[in-house]
């Protein structure tokens, strides 16, 4: 895959007179970047601005460039996995996998082959005919990721991917992101307020204050693939304490 580059320049988001994101700038290559900060500091607002969500009373200023061109917000260019996650309850996993704009460009045979490969990678091929209400939290999260990745996004955004998920499933999700998503080489921005999650996933961590502005950036020097046992490493503890104190 060619090297991709996402550049956010002086992004400012206002709701009426309230500034939620203040002159935020960020450069992301084919790597995973974590935006780390307390709840309500504007992390998700940054993701929504990259996704191009327009809301009543919201004003967005600044430039978002992808490979030096203005980022296109339509056509599934930016894939986002939402907190929760969001999977409409009235569609089966199979129907969800086929709904993306890029998936529809393929023939039914090609779609089937792609879905089979993706769901096998995610270890959820047995869920293809199930409805979301028949899935556990971890399974839903994997389905949401599979649906997003099947649409071949150029940029991947994840909003607190392991929130509302139990401890064991959270570790499984992190392992999975490390193994299956990182290797795709898509510029990935993860929003988190969990230090362990940030350290497990990130190449770089940006600490944010309210209104969202970078107060500190930290390189995460640990080699990939990472696993949960690394969290007991002394250097990791040091980084974790730095994150908590920042």
């Amino acid at each position, binding site marked *: 895959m060619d090297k991709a580059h996402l550049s956010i320049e002086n992004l400012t988001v206002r709701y009426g007179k309230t500034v939620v994101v203040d002159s935020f700038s960020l450069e992301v290559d084919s790597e995973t970047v974590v935006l780390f900060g307390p709840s309500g500091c504007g992390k998700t607002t940054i993701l*929504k601005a990259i*996704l*191009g*969500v327009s*809301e*009543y009373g919201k004003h967005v200023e600044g430039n978002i460039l992808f490979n030096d061109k203005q980022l296109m*917000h*339509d*056509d*599934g*260019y*930016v*894939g*986002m996995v*939402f907190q*929760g996650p*969001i999977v*409409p*309850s*009235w*569609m*089966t996993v*199979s*129907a969800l996998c086929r*709904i*993306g*704009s*890029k998936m529809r460009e393929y023939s039914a045979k090609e779609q*089937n*082959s792609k*879905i*089979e490969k993706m769901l096998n990678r995610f270890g959820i*091929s*047995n*869920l*293809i*005919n*199930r*409805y979301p*209400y*028949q899935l556990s939290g971890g399974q839903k999260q994997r389905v949401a990721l599979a*649906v*997003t990745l099947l*649409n071949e*996004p150029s940029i991947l*955004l994840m909003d607190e991917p392991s929130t509302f998920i139990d401890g064991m499933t959270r570790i499984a999700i992190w392992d999975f992101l490390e193994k299956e998503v990182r290797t795709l080489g898509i510029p990935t921005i993860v929003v988190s307020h969990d230090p362990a999650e940030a350290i497990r996933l990130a190449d770089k961590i940006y600490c944010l204050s309210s209104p969202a502005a970078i107060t500190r950036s930290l390189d995460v020097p640990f080699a990939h693939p990472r696993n949960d046992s690394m969290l007991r490493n002394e250097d990791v503890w040091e980084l974790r304490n730095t994150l908590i104190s920042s």
Partner: protein
Amino acid sequence: MKPNEKPIKRQRPWLRPTLQVVVAPATFILLWSIIAPQYHLPSVKAIGLAVAEMIEVGTYWHDIIISSIRGLSGFSIGFALGAFFGILTGRFSQLFLLFGGLLHFLRWTPVLALLPLTIRIGGLGEQPKIFLVAWACFFVSWAYTHVAVSKLNPAYIWWSKSLGLNLRQRLFRVYAPSVSPSLIGGARVALAVGMIVVVAAELGGTIQEGFFRDGLGYRISRAIETNRNDINIACILTFGLIGTCFDFALVQFVKRGLRVLTGIDFYRNEG
């Protein structure tokens, strides 16, 4: 792709219709048989004979058809307009700011109190009756649709955007399935309210000639005047029966319509 697992099917699909068609009416008849003698009400047999009498005279089916036409036409107009305005005020908050107060005020004006006024203006013909039914249905369906559209989970809008869905797909595969349970709920309540207003409108009086004469509500008022409790109760129960049939037909119609429109059977898990 070979599915590894079949969708979970509902166990004993015959159970629900059996309960609805056999057990519920049987329970009603049993309870009526116990309660009716204590209050000098007609027996189940007497009610059955009253129905037979109305069929023999030729009023029963005619009354049902006329009351149904009044109810359904008023409901169709009221629901369509209510849903349309509900989508507008739910989607565009500025419109709700402008007209929401007026709609809420009118919603709280008692529809049955309008009956003498509509008779005075429009007479005993069909238009005032259909107007009253439509008026009542409009506000129910407007309120339900407005809430459903305005409370549409914004995450679905963002999710659709992140997958690059076009407007048609957003409407039919995401937004419509998301708001339709509330819409159907609104339609069912509006239909029930509409049928109540039909009774009131017919009790207020009907014309006595031509095809659009009488009606079940009028038959009830005649039964009260002639002290025929058996006919009175037979007509009340008939209203209940046709209301149940309309409700069932409405749900089936919407379910199938949405399945054709969206390609999604999103009510399968609701039985």
